């Protein structure tokens, strides 16, 4: 099967506003690529460019090595699931799933078996004779996925497929999507979301988008542990970003010398230090930071502390405390040198 997607310098503009700026990205055959970003970052536009609902101002889109930039949507061999499901309200579930097969003139004798197979795969076989309005949100989403899978697409485009569901259903559907992908290893999946948990859970690689541009791309572990930009660090995992000055043997932050791996940074230059809140500990240790507690939030298994260190707010997620520090008391935080990442020049306040 010819799957895989390639964006080759794709730009999209609406009436003078550039909503997607020169995107270069390759989704390998069988890969799950998450497009992660806030609203207005251009991620949905990128997906719609693959589907054929927006025409790029420049650049080419390839599906399975074939240039589809000029093809209408119905000739692209895609399957698509959108946030609002878009099930046809006048058709029963089985007719919804059969829609694509009939539209593409699949052999009549094959259709019932393929509809049954798709409904079986998504666990909706028992609901074949229902109308969409008689189903819950989660069930409608399963039908929408079955409808997209029935046509055996080369690529599956998922546009915020879980954001209309409540939290519990969402984690269940995430597991289902992961299972479906194991059953269909050849299909490339482009998954648009603003939810980092969905992206981290499901994707083989994540493309982080902001302000119409691709900011970063890598495996979830890679982006989480070694973010390359401040945007990635704060959007994926909500990191502490501290403005520091590079010193000979580490960095200087508010007068304190911190030991961090800073291989190729020039001493004296400014940079941003990225530390994940859950890797910051309470108490003395290497790389100690002294500051005043400004807020304490209880989050069940953890406590989130906000500590002001020389005018900068540092977040620390620590295991649930027996005794929480009172507001205004002075505490010491620490983190291990290998848990910090030094990001390129530029100063930002965490």
């Amino acid at each position, binding site marked *: 099967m010819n799957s895989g997607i390639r964006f080759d310098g794709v730009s999209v503009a609406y009436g003078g506003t550039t909503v997607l700026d020169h995107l270069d990205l390759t989704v390998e055959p069988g890969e799950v690529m998450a497009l992660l970003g806030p609203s207005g970052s251009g991620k949905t536009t990128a997906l719609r460019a693959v*589907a*054929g*609902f927006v025409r790029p101002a420049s650049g080419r889109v390839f599906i399975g090595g074939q240039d589809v930039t000029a093809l*209408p*949507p*119905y*000739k692209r*061999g*895609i*399957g*698509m699931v*959108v946030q*609002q499901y*878009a099930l*046809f*309200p*006048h058709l029963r579930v089985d007719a919804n799933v059969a*829609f*694509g097969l009939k*539209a*593409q003139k699949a052999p009549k004798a094959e259709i019932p078996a393929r509809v049954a197979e798709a409904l079986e795969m998504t666990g909706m076989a028992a609901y074949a004779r229902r*109308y969409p*309005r008689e189903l819950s949100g989660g069930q409608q989403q399963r039908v929408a996925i079955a*409808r*997209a899978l029935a*046509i055996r697409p080369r690529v599956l*485009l998922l546009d915020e497929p879980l954001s209309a569901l409540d939290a519990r259903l969402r984690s269940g559907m995430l597991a289902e999507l992961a299972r479906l992908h194991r059953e269909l290893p050849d299909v490339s999946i482009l998954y648009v979301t603003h939810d980092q948990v969905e992206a981290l859970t499901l994707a083989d690689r994540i493309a982080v988008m902001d302000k119409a541009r691709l900011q970063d791309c890598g495996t979830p572990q890679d982006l989480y542990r070694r973010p390359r930009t401040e945007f990635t660090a704060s959007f994926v995992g909500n990191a502490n970003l501290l403005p520091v000055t590079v010193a000979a043997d580490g960095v200087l932050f508010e007068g304190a010398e911190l030991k961090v791996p800073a291989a190729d940074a020039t001493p004296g230059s400014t940079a941003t230090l990225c530390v994940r809140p859950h890797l910051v500990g309470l108490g003395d240790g290497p790389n100690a930071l002294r500051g005043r507690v400004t807020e304490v939030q209880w989050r069940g298994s953890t406590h989130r502390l906000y500590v002001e260190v020389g005018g900068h707010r540092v977040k620390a997620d620590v295991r649930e405390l027996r005794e929480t520090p009172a507001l205004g008391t002075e505490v010491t935080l620490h983190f291990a040198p290998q848990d910090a990442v030094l990001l390129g020049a530029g100063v930002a306040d965490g």
Partner: protein
Amino acid sequence: MLVHSRTGRWTAWALFAVLFVPLFALPLLVIVAASFSTHWSGAFPSGPTTAHYTAAVRGESLQALTTSLVTAVTASLVALTVGTWAALASAAMGRRGRRILDALFMLPVAVPSVVVGLAVLVAFSQPPVLLNGTRWIVILAHTVLVTAFAHQSVSAAVRRLDPMYEQAAAGLGARPSYVLLRVRLPLLLPSLNAAAGLCFALSMGELSATMMLYPPDWLPLPVLIFTATDRGSLFTGSALAVILMAATLLALLAVSRIRTRASFR
């Protein structure tokens, strides 16, 4: 509910009754009463008789009723087809094209129907297209008049139609013609129904343009009612009016009974 207090509610109902009964209900009731009368004495009609109805369901009157029905059905169907086509086309156009097309189709609403009648009469009284003196000129004028309404109500529905259905269908590999037949038209069906009812009712009651155009062998019911009352046969006219009213209402009721699955959304 907007009005909460008990007295407020009673006042609202009373106001409604005072306005609605004399303005809307009473004149229609008087027509019904008159259609069963032989003469008018004082404030009330008298002498219940069904003679006007027996006369009204045969001969010239019956023919006028069928003429009206055939005209209304034909005009509505053509208007619905043309209006829907134009509504779909204008939705696919750019802003400018859409404005021009919508304005063109609104023209017959803005122009008084007498003027439309006269225009049709003048335009089709000479070869090459000589329709004057045939039934087709009446049907044509009705079609022109009601197409505006069909176009307007269908294009409102087309605008409300969520493009995600169309895109979902296209994403599943359906070509535009397939999407139109299997997705868009079925979803528009409730509005098409309503538009058909509106066109039918408007055509059934059309008088002013028809007066300018009707040939002797194609005389719709409103014209007959007008000529009857003009001659002074008020009671015969009333009976015909009740029949026109009943026929139109029955047809509208039948159209509204056509429930579509899309309307259950």
